């Protein structure tokens, strides 16, 4: 949905507001004055499965605790709204957002407080999956916030379309190229992807790390050096090979995640790379044809099985204002971390959480797709390194622009690596 013009405006505004924040401007707001009211900024819109469950559990929390939670919805612009409010000293107490891009800079900018001690003091250290806590912990050991939503990010395959084209689900890149040709011959678009946004960036980096071990991928994501790495270049060349073989849908370089999802959900495309948050959008008539799997890998690569991503999505960040009314914030976070509340997100919104929920607390009928994601997928795939944690937040937008260029036909591997390296400064 985000248009390029709005993205440019947002980036400009973000830069300006960050400058404002770092100059120490503060209006000395009074949001900390009411200890029984906490404000939370979220992207979870009403009318979405996750947004509705969030409102429902907040209503229960308010009735149970006597604490009022004022919810503000910021849509895609949550970081911009939060940073500006913080500059004026009127930041919401809690921000509900994922740990990518701008939020990764918030501790250093003094906008949020590390929650390392809160996690242990509030007895929550054993409630969340260790991998999630580790993902939200910085290199200096500070926990940035409380991770909450989790995801599996596989490749979605439409088995009916594969059967129609007479091909099997590919596990190697050679098979993927052959399958794409067969699908196209049958009039079916192969691999839907939003080449123009974060979904394309993730797929590009998933392919680009095909020949990199985890340490090498981590170093390149963090510091660049694409052109200097033979293995990284092999990954980029693999990407261009797939692109030029017609694996991706037509005009992929101009598409975004929403059009990718629509192409797959309407049966126009046979594959897409999307996270478990899309479960709620899967039409009932398509559910039986959906099979989750990994992304085909090349022979001689770093992975011995098709790859997928896993990780965390939205969590809770505590602002400096929130730290001033920490008792109320503690009650809210502790409530959200309870298995009973987390189970509602799984049952009602099909949203995975990082909270360890005993099976007997989940509803009796877990969606078959959700069961496939949580039970079968982890045994069938190798997990690639999720780049969001390592690509510096302040260059993510530029990297997305570079990977969008990579999806454009004719862009060479040398040009792609040079473009990627240029943004690391």
């Amino acid at each position, binding site marked *: *949905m*985000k248009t390029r013009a*709005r993205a440019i*405006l947002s980036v*400009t*505004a973000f830069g*300006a*507001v960050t*400058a*404002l924040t770092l100059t120490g*401007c503060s*209006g000395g707001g009074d949001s900390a004055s009411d200890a029984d009211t906490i404000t939370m*900024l979220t*992207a*979870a*819109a*009403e*009318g*979405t499965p*996750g*947004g509705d469950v969030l409102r429902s559990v907040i209503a229960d929390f308010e009735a149970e605790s006597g604490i009022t939670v004022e919810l*503000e*919805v*910021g*849509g*895609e*612009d*949550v970081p*911009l*709204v939060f940073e*500006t*409010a913080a*500059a*004026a*000293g*009127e930041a919401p107490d809690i921000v509900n*957002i*994922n740990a990518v891009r701008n939020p990764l800079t918030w501790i250093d900018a003094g906008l949020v407080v590390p929650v390392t001690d809160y996690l242990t003091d509030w007895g929550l250290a054993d409630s969340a999956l260790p991998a999630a806590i580790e993902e939200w912990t910085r290199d200096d050991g500070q926990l940035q916030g409380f991770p909450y939503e989790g995801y599996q990010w596989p490749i979605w395959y439409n088995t009916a379309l594969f059967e129609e084209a007479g091909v099997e689900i590919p596990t190697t890149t050679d098979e993927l190229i052959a399958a794409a040709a067969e699908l196209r011959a049958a009039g079916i678009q192969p691999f839907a992807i939003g080449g123009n946004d974060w979904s394309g960036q993730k797929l590009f980096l998933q392919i680009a790390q095909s020949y990199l071990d985890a340490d090498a991928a981590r170093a390149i994501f963090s510091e660049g050096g694409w052109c200097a790495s033979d293995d990284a270049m092999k990954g980029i060349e693999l990407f261009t090979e797939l692109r030029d073989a017609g694996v991706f849908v037509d005009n992929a370089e101009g598409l975004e*995640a*929403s*059009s990718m*999802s*629509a*192409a797959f*959900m*309407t049966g*126009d495309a046979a594959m897409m790379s999307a*996270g478990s*948050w*899309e479960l709620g*959008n899967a*039409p009932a008539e398509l559910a039986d044809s959906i099979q989750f799997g990994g992304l085909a890998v090349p022979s001689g690569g770093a992975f011995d099985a098709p790859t997928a991503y896993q990780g965390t*999505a*939205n969590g809770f960040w505590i602002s400096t204002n929130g730290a001033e009314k920490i008792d109320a914030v503690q009650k809210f976070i502790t409530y959200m971390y309870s298995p009973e509340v987390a189970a509602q997100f799984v049952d009602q919104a099909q949203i995975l959480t990082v909270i360890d929920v005993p099976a007997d607390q989940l509803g009796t009928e877990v969606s078959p797709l959700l069961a496939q994601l949580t039970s079968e997928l982890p045994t069938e795939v190798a997990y690639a390194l999720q780049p969001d944690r390592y690509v510096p937040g302040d260059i993510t937008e530029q990297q997305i622009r570079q990977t969008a260029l990579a999806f454009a036909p004719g862009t060479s591997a040398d040009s792609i690596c040079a473009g990627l390296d240029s943004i690391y400064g």
Partner: protein
Amino acid sequence: MTGSRALSIGTRTLSHVAVWFYAALLLLPLYFLVVSSLKDNTEIYADGFGLPPKWRWENYVNAWNYVDLGHALFNSAYVTVLSEILIIVLAVPAAYGVARSRGWIGKLVERSLTLGFLIPGFAALVPTVLLAIGLGLFRTREFLILDYVAGAMPLSVILLAQYVRALPHELEESARVDGANRLQILWRIYLPLIMPALATVMLLNFINIWNEYLIALVIGGPSVDIRTAQVALPTLVTNQAAQFGLLTAGTVIVLIPVYLCYLALRKRMENALVSGALKG
């Protein structure tokens, strides 16, 4: 003679075709917007220009309810109408003063106003935020009004001043002979005569203010009590998904006041546009 007539018919036909083609080009996105507002995401992507397989009127109800659009429209109307009033109150006398000034100060003022065109809105974001915080007006609709008025003044004054200049001086001189002071001359003589230009200025400002997003978001913020319709609508888009049916339904609702404003001011604006063509 026959050849000339044939040429004339050919030219007219071509003109008609061009006009109808242009009208179709303008209508196409509007049609897409309206039919999309009655579909869900899947239907929009499956057949963007087709009629909805199921007419989802509930999109309008849900868009209205989910983002409290009634409240947001009130905020937009509050900010826009008060800004318009302030712009008129300030720009009309300023334009009159600039147009009738014969000294260097008037020219200096007019040229300094043109400098206002050179500064893009987002370039002034940081000082604007600082000003809002400094005035204690951050997260208020009142600051939005002040900012929009300040932003609209250069163009408004210059457009009105040009129109005032085109009016004969004799009108003012006659009124002064009859004993009218400057305020009376402005109110009774010039204001009725510049109404077409004023309508144009009001319409341009209405569209700019009603549709403004960045300042409304950054300074007004997402609070339901303050946010305008332009800030409320995008909250239907999350960081992972968008509900385009709801979004387009909300957009149609938000467009209606703009169209009503155009209908109200259309006649006078057209008068302003053609008045130059009739002179001389």
